[in-house]
């Protein structure tokens, strides 16, 4: 093989490896620190995946269900990254310190929609205590582009002007109802760091 071609191949391999997601196992029954924000107590074993600084936990794979721990979101930051439309008309949706839970729910709905989710419906925004703090919760549902229906819920609170959120979602058929109780248990026992 030509030297330049070999170098190119090595560079491509390195770039590919760097782009790979790392997956580690989370054992049941042991408290686990999630970023700098939470400590949780999983009852079952999960697969832990890092996605853009957030952690995503799943048993059967993120396409079927996952719990996502969103890192602390600062004033002016998006909830999560969505593809840039390239349009100068678009003003990207971002979190603003002091947003009410109703506005956070709107922000979530808009961000999900801009990320490609179809017919996103957020409902039932309500108060919820998380790790001893006043927080909020809402339910959501959407369809993928291919028409797979997903259900989910989100909990969150603001601490030091930054938003912390946890999502759990799964396929409407089976995976959301099957793992919902485990996700609820983990949220009930969450410790805020």
């Amino acid at each position, binding site marked *: 093989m030509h030297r330049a071609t070999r170098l190119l191949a090595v560079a491509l391999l390195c770039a590919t490896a760097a782009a790979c997601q790392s997956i580690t196992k989370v054992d049941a029954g042991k408290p686990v620190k999630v970023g700098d924000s939470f400590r949780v107590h999983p009852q079952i074993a999960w697969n832990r995946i890092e996605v853009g600084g957030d952690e995503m936990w799943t048993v059967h794979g993120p396409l079927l269900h996952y719990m996502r721990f969103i890192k602390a979101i600062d004033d002016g930051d998006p909830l999560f990254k969505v593809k840039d439309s390239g*349009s*100068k*008309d*678009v*003003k*990207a*949706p971002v979190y*603003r310190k*002091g947003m*009410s*839970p*109703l*506005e956070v729910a*709107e922000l979530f*709905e*808009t961000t999900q*929609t*801009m990320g490609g*989710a*179809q*017919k996103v419906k957020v*409902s*039932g*925004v*309500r*108060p919820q205590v998380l790790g001893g703090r*006043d927080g*909020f919760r809402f339910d959501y549902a*959407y*369809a*993928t*582009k*291919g*028409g*797979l229906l997903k259900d989910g819920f989100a909990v969150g609170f603001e601490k030091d002007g930054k938003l912390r959120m946890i999502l759990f979602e799964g396929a409407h058929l089976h995976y959301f109802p099957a793992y919902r109780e485990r996700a609820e248990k983990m949220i009930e026992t969450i410790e805020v760091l």
Partner: protein
Amino acid sequence: MIPARPLAAVLAAAALTAACVGNPKVYDDSVRAAQVMDGGGTAGVADESAAQARAVLAGYQVASLSPGQRPAASTVEAGLWMQIDRVTNRMQSAGNRVTDPALNAYVAGVVCRVAGEYCNSVRTYVLRQPAFNAAMYPNGVMEVWSGLLLRVRNEAQLAAVVGHEVGHYLRRHSLQRFEKIRDATNGLVFFQVVTAMAGVGIVGNVAALATIGGLQAYSRDNEREADGYGLVLMGRAGYDPREAAKVWANIQRETDASDNARGSLFAASHPPSDERQRELARLAPAVTVATGDDPLGRERFLAAVAPHRMAFLRDEIKKRTFKPTMAMLEGLLEDGDRPAEIHYAIGELYRIRGDDGDGEKALDSYAKALADGDAPAAVHRSVGLVHRKAGRQDEARAAFARYLELTPQAEDAAMIRFMIQGGS
């Protein structure tokens, strides 16, 4: 440019018109034009330009076309259909498909009326997609986007757009493009391009247009031809053809409001809106129009879209394209149908943008919505959010309380109560 066509083709167009939906009586062009434009007074079209317009329209014959039959397996067209079938089969379960049978039936009915004898070859899907578009695939699948239903004002305007798409279908423009691309590219690109170009409709598919960049002038001719067919088809279905030009006036307004650079791929491949508007307005009086008792179909259209309009408006707001969306909303406000809902949507647009001064603009719009007397209760919720953000807690609590008073069973009632009590 649209080529001049033999005048004899007028006879074919007349024969076609005789096969139209409903009462087949055909009005004389100039008489009909005078009726439409002047309420029955003097003729509104100069003889020379009317003759030119008639000559152009004579080229848009439908009777000699025979789409809707599956092409033979050995043909290039069969390859195109195979690829297109894959795309359109996915549409049946698409996540953004509007499933309301009533709205689907209404839109399909308009498409069918315009398609006339080709109705049985067409399948129509309404999709929740907040942009101005409709598209028709070579296998007879028509998709109509929710954004289109917000940007036309009556059934005649909807008929103009779907008629344009049926024009593409009848003239097999997709096949023409397919063959042109095949000749210009190698085999791999040939097949990759197919799915991208499928459904290039009124607005077009950016990816497809990027790929077929060299064919843009060709596409413009297709669009002009489809515009002409759209006029002929809506006329024979009994719709007022002058409504076609008005669609483009609405679209031009949004384009003018956009910060995006002119000279986009869409602009390069489609005649400019103002040019389309002028040409459609020039040709409209010469279109043969079947008699009918309601050439605009405004009330039918508004009644069909009404149950969905707020959801469609929310989709537009979520795009966060403030200037074009505002232009669209202002157009709806001028149209006059249920203004409270539009004032509320304008208020939401300001509130969600949240720039300096937007809170007060939002409150102004909410006040107009409430003054109209037919505003949704959620306006009070939004008023409360604006006051809360501005630190006016008493006003916020009052607005939230009013919201709960009107909708005590609201799905977010628990959160609202919590906020009234000083939480969050």
